[in-house]
């Protein structure tokens, strides 16, 4: 059997090798075909034909996960137009297969021909491990799609709706006319805003659970007034800025959950002249060049990641040549480059500032450095160039152990999954090791020059949220309070009295039903909590709101916890489906931070009390095991439920509501 791979590893005739692999595949010799495809890819990793061949073989064997990994790696390494389109076709074919949990339904409508943009969107969504299911609006049909209640868009039941209508279509007079009159400007502004209002109102009505992303208006590359545009009253740029101000005003008044997309900024960043291929625009109304479609689809991905709770939670940072220039163990406190007006110290200071901004937004920072602690802390505590301080780091590993082990320990200490971590290190060898040993961690490819560190960090689309909650803003402080609690635990543990510890914490709890202030945080917890989560059902903010408003059929509970060391905030949620005789716990989840203190008992107790008062006889609980929720596996048995049966993947439990009083833990103070 010839593989056309010579002993020196070169394929003398790639075409023949491909043909041979295809023959093997046609003959049903899948193992041999797979070997052949893999040998071709070893020499020609950029071969689309070989990738498609291998994906097909893996697919036919039912190894869809492997096939998808292969495709993801290929298009990430070789993102040329042809590969993106081919990969998108395959993702489209996978729409109906595979894990339901990974599917995300996105509708995109707007001006121009959007089919290629959908392809780029599919590939972007797939790159974060989701299965894209995309509805692309027909040319010029956005109004029909959004205004008719039974339109194909609403039938599609999107979770995300992207509205991409451009300035020249919605506001042609404001965008392009040479010297429009004040009246013309105003009439068009009002009718354009009214149209946008119509579209959003209809989307809200017929797809209330969907998150809408709305393009704001980009400024055309040139103004009819030339250099006089800005100094002319009511010049083109000012008119478009007024339009955008009116759009944002409308959103703030009536559509707070719609996400406006700052298209002008995104286009400017890419370079206005790179946004459109005029030939494709004139020939087929394709509005964007492939390079911009790649950028724009990753901008959409920011929102998608946020909506799906895939936001990364923690950045693990190296120190030497990452947070400062030089190696502190060799160059010493005075030898490292940090802060000041000279390069590279100023570049490293800016990088620390950018990291600090993310920290303020609720992303945790952790340190992982191969150093002696005695060399490091004086710099962190005292160096005038340091922006980040000791208390800004939620976890620290400064030792000579390998970084992969340290990172695993950091994840465990912070009680977050490895797939929530991002690793930044200037050293390619360290990055390679971590990528290999802990592939679930996102290891960022850092540029060699620290001048580009800040831009690299800011371009990452991994840290977005759809709502900045108080918990986000306080998260760093929350971890500090946790350290204090741990120290107290250690001191009382010596005495061996758990109850003394619990009483000593002076834990106060407040159980509420959801209101408009708490709904964003409740939705956030529902989407992020993996470990103590009995069913891991994910709901959007809009869906939670619907449940909270439907008080006859749903109970949306939250529990706030604070103790003498600090306020942990809203850390537990329960969704309960009510019927006359039986209440069912649809979701019961808690932040790991507050486990082991009876908080879950308190929340359950409240549900039982309410069920009793309502006249229900039984409370049903479901446990759906996942890779991550083992910590909640014993919840129902511990709370006195009896096991009923296994239905599909779920374990069903039941509690007779009147039976043996379920009690509220006596060390908790209920507010």
């Amino acid at each position, binding site marked *: 059997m010839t593989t056309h791979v010579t002993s020196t590893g070169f394929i003398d005739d790639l075409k023949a090798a491909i043909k041979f692999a295809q023959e093997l595949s046609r003959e049903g010799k899948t193992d041999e075909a797979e070997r052949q495809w893999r040998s071709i890819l070893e020499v020609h990793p950029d071969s689309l034909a070989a990738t498609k061949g291998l994906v097909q073989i893996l697919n036919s064997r039912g190894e869809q996960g492997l096939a998808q990994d292969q495709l993801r790696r290929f298009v990430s390494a070789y993102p040329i*137009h*042809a590969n993106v*389109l081919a990969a998108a076709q395959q993702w489209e074919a996978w729409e109906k297969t595979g894990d339901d949990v990974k599917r995300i339904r996105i509708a995109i409508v707007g001006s121009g021909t959007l089919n290629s943009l959908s392809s780029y969107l599919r590939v972007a969504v797939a790159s974060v491990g989701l299965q894209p299911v995309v509805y692309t609006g027909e040319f010029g049909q956005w109004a029909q799609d959004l205004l008719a209640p039974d339109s194909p868009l609403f039938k599609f039941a999107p979770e995300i709706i992207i509205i991409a209508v451009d300035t020249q279509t919605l506001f042609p007079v404001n965008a392009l006319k040479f010297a429009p009159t004040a009246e013309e400007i105003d009439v068009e502004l009002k009718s354009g805003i009214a149209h946008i209002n119509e579209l959003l109102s209809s989307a809200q009505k017929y797809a209330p659970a969907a998150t809408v992303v709305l393009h704001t208006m980009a400024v055309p590359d040139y103004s009819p007034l030339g250099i006089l545009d800005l100094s002319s009253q009511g010049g083109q740029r000012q008119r478009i800025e007024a339009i955008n101000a009116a759009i944002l005003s409308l959103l703030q008044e009536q559509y707070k959950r719609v996400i406006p997309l700052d298209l002008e900024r995104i286009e400017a960043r890419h370079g206005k002249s790179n946004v459109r291929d005029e*030939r*494709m625009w*004139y*020939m*087929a109304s*394709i509005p964007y060049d492939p390079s911009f479609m790649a950028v724009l689809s990753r901008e959409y991905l920011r929102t998608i990641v946020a909506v799906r709770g895939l936001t990364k939670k923690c950045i693990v940072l190296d120190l030497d040549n990452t947070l400062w220039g030089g190696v502190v163990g060799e160059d010493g406190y005075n030898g490292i480059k940090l802060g000041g007006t000279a390069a590279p110290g100023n570049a490293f200071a800016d990088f620390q500032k950018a990291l600090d901004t993310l920290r303020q937004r609720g992303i945790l920072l952790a340190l992982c450095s191969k150093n002696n602690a005695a060399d490091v802390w004086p710099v962190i505590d005292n160096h005038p160039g340091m922006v980040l301080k000791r208390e800004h780091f939620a976890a620290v590993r400064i030792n000579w152990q390998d970084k992969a082990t340290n990172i695993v320990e950091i994840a465990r200490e912070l009680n977050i999954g490895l797939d929530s971590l991002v690793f930044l290190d200037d050293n390619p060898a360290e990055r390679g090791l971590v990528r290999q040993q802990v592939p679930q961690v996102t290891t960022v490819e850092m540029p060699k020059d620290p001048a580009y560190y800040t831009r690299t960090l800011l371009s990452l689309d991994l840290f977005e949220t759809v709502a900045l909650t108080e918990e986000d803003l306080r998260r760093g402080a929350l971890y500090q309070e946790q350290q204090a609690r741990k120290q107290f635990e250690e001191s009382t543990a010596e005495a061996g009295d758990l109850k003394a510890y619990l009483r000593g914490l002076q834990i106060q709890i407040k159980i509420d039903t959801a209101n408009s202030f708490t709904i964003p945080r409740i939705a956030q917890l529902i989407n992020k909590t993996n470990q103590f989560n009995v069913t891991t059902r994910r709901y959007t903010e809009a869906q939670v709101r619907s449940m909270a408003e439907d008080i006859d059929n749903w109970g949306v509970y939250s529990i706030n916890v604070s103790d003498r060391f600090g306020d942990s905030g809203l850390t537990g949620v329960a969704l309960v489906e009510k019927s006359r005789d039986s209440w069912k716990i649809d979701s019961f989840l808690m932040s790991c931070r507050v486990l082991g203190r009876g908080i879950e008992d308190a929340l359950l107790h409240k549900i039982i009390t309410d069920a009793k008062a309502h006249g229900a006889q039984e409370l049903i609980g479901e446990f759906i095991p996942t890779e991550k929720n083992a910590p909640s596996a014993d919840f129902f048995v511990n709370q006195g439920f009896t096991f009923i049966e296994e239905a599909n993947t779920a374990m069903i439990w039941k509690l007779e509501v009147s039976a043996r009083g379920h009690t509220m833990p006596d060390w908790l103070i209920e507010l």
Partner: protein
Amino acid sequence: MASDPQVEQLRSLTAEVLGVDESDITDDSSSKTIPQWSSFNHLTLMSTVEETFGLTFSMQEMTDLQTFRDLVNLVHSHVA
């Protein structure tokens, strides 16, 4: 045409974009003979050839192009 490697590369590329077998691509293949050669796929084909060979075609050249033979000639004229 003889099996000129550039021609074969173009044939392979065209087959890939249109989603047909290489054996279906002959000199006279066009949107009239291959149903998958839609106007959208025509533009994708143009972009892919440009990207692969590092060329830029004008709108006129792209709209004038009808057959596979035309494509081969166009690429030859740009590369030569």
